[in-house]
C-alpha cells in the first residue's frame, strides 16, 4: 500500500510544473514527515551527498537552457532567469523524491516492504512468475547493502594498512587497484550467501508453497485514511495543473 502511495507521489513530483503545485507537494511531504515522526532536517541532511550533483545540474541547466532559448528575442537576463527557474525546479524535485523515498524506507522494515511487494504482484502468479521468491531476493538484497558496505570499508582499511595505494595513478591503474578490495568482498559475499542458504534450509525454508505468515498485512483504517489523503492530493494536483 505504502509502495503504491509512494509511487503515486513520485509520479506527481515528476509531473509537477506550476509553482502552486510544488508548494502543495512540499506542504504535503512536510506534514507527512511530521506525522511519521521523522525530523525533516534528516532528509535535508540526506540531501547532502547529492549536493555536488545538484549544483552540477543547476550549473549545467543554467548554461544549457540559456543557450537553447537564445533566439535573440528576450533580453539576456530573462533567459538566465528561465534557466535558474528550471534548475530550482529540479532541486525541489530531487528533494521531494528523496523525502518521499526516505519516508517509505525509514518507516517500513524491509520485511514488510517485501510482503507488500509480494501482495501487490500476486496477480502475476497466474503467469507462473515466482513472485514470492523474487520478493525474498529483493528483501535480502536490501538487507545486505549495509553489511556489504561495512565490509568493503573494513577490507579497504585492511589493505591500506598494508600499504595499498588507491588514490593515485591513471583511471585504468585505479581500477586495477580495486581488485584487492573487490576480490575479498566477493569471496565474503559468496560465503555469506552460502551461510544464509544453509541457515534458511536448516529452518526448513522451502519457498512459497504453503507458507503462513507471522504478521498478516491487513488494510486498516490508517491505510484508507492515507489512501484518501493521497487521492485528495492527486485531485488537487490535477486541478492546479490542468484546470487552472
Amino acid at each position, binding site marked *: 500500500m505504502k509502495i503504491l502511495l509512494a509511487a503515486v507521489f513520485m509520479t506527481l513530483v515528476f509531473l509537477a510544473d506550476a509553482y502552486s503545485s510544488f508548494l502543495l507537494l512540499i506542504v504535503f511531504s512536510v506534514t507527512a514527515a511530521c506525522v511519521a515522526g521523522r525530523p525533516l532536517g534528516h532528509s535535508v541532511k540526506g540531501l547532502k551527498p547529492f549536493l555536488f550533483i545538484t549544483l552540477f545540474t543547476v550549473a549545467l541547466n543554467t548554461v544549457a537552457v540559456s543557450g537553447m532559448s537564445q533566439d535573440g528575442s528576450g533580453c539576456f537576463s530573462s533567459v538566465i532567469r528561465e534557466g535558474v527557474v528550471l534548475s530550482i525546479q529540479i532541486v525541489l524535485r530531487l528533494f521531494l523524491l528523496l523525502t518521499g523515498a526516505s519516508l517509505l524506507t525509514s518507516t517500513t522494515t524491509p520485511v514488510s516492504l517485501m510482503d507488500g511487494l509480494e501482495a501487490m504482484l500476486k496477480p502475476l502468479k497466474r503467469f507462473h512468475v515466482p513472485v514470492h521468491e523474487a520478493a525474498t531476493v529483493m528483501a535480502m538484497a536490501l538487507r545486505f547493502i549495509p553489511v556489504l558496505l561495512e565490509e568493503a570499508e573494513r577490507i579497504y*582499511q585492511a589493505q591500506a594498512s598494508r600499504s595499498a595505494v588507491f588514490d593515485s595513478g591513471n583511471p585504468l591503474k585505479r581500477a586495477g587497484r580495486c581488485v584487492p578490495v573487490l*576480490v*575479498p568482498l566477493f569471496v565474503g559475499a559468496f560465503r555469506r550467501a552460502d551461510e544464509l542458504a544453509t541457515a534458511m534450509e536448516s529452518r526448513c525454508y522451502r519457498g512459497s508453497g504453503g507458507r503462513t505468515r507471522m504478521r498478516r498485512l491487513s488494510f486498516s483504517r490508517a491505510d484508507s485514511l492515507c489512501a484518501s489523503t493521497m487521492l485528495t492530493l492527486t485531485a488537487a494536483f490535477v486541478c492546479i495543473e490542468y484546470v487552472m
Partner: protein
Amino acid sequence: MLSIRLENLSFCYQQGTPFEKTALRNITLTIEPGTFLGVAGLSGAGKTTLLRHLSGFLRPTSGRITFDGLPVDAHGARDLRRRVGLVFQHPEDQLFEETVYKDIAFGLSGAGVSPEEAAERVREALEAVGLGEELLERSPFGLSGGEKRRVAIAGVMVMKPSVLVLDEPSVGLDPRGRGEILDHIARMRRKRGVTVVLATHDMEQMARYAEKVVVLKGGSIVSEGTPREVFRDAGALESAGLEPPRITRLMMKLKKALPDIDDGIGTVEEAAEEIKRVYRGKGCGWRRHDTRHAHGQICSRQFDSSPVGPEDEDTAGGRLYDACISC
C-alpha cells in the same frame, strides 16, 4: 622506533546524528617503543576503535594522538601506516592474490623494493609467523583457517612496521593455533624489538605475553599496569566483565591460607615457582607439622593431611592445586 602518545582522546561515531555513539572517553596512554601492550575489554568496550586510531584510520573527536610528538598529518597517513602495521580482526578476509607469495608481497609492490629483497622479506615474514616455504606457491584460498590468518599477518609483517597492532589475532582458532601465533609474534618482537599492541579478552594471553595491560570498559580505561597489578585489582577487572586467568584465581584462594603468596601471577609456570618458593620459605616445620592446619584452611574437604616429605614438594603443590581447582 615510534612512541605513541594519546592525550584525553575521545571518539564518537556518527557525531551529530541520532546514531551518535561515544566509543572512547578521555583515553590517556603512552606506548613506549618496544613494549608489549595488551588492550583488554569485552566486545564493544572500544578496543578496535582505539587500535584504529593508532594507525591513523580514525581521527579523535577531541583530545589528541601524537607519534613521536607529531600529529598524524605531520607524518602523512600513508607513511604512518607503513610504520604502524594494523592487523584487523579476521585478517584472512583480506587475502585476494593467486598465490601466498604474491599476497604477502602485495604491500611491497608500492614501496620500491627490488624483487630480490622482496623475496627475502617474504621469506622472513613467513618464518616469523611459523609457516613453511612450501606454501608460497599455493592459493591462499585453499589453506586452513589458521594458515590463512598467518599468511595475512605475514602480509603486514613484511612491511617491517616498527609498531605491530593486532586486533584479536587468535579469535576463532584452536588452542594450539592460538598459542603458536602469539609465540611467533613474541619471538619476532624479541628479535626485532618492535612494539606490539594486542587487543584481546583472553586474560591468559595477557598474562603470558603483555608487559603492560590497559582494561577498557565502555570506552574508558578502568585499570592499567603490569598484568600482575591488573589481576590483583580484581574489582576493576570484574566490573569490566573480565576474569583473571584461572591460575590467578587459584592463587587468590591460596592467599587466604598463605598471606605472603603473590596472587597476581597469571601463568601456570610462574605459579608453580611461587608455590615452591612459599613452601620452601615456610621451612620443614610447616610442611611436617602444620600441614593439617594449613591445608585445612584451604580446603578441608578435598585435601588430606598426610605429612609431606621434602622430596614431595612438587606432588604437594600439585595436590594443593587439584584441591583448590575443585573447591
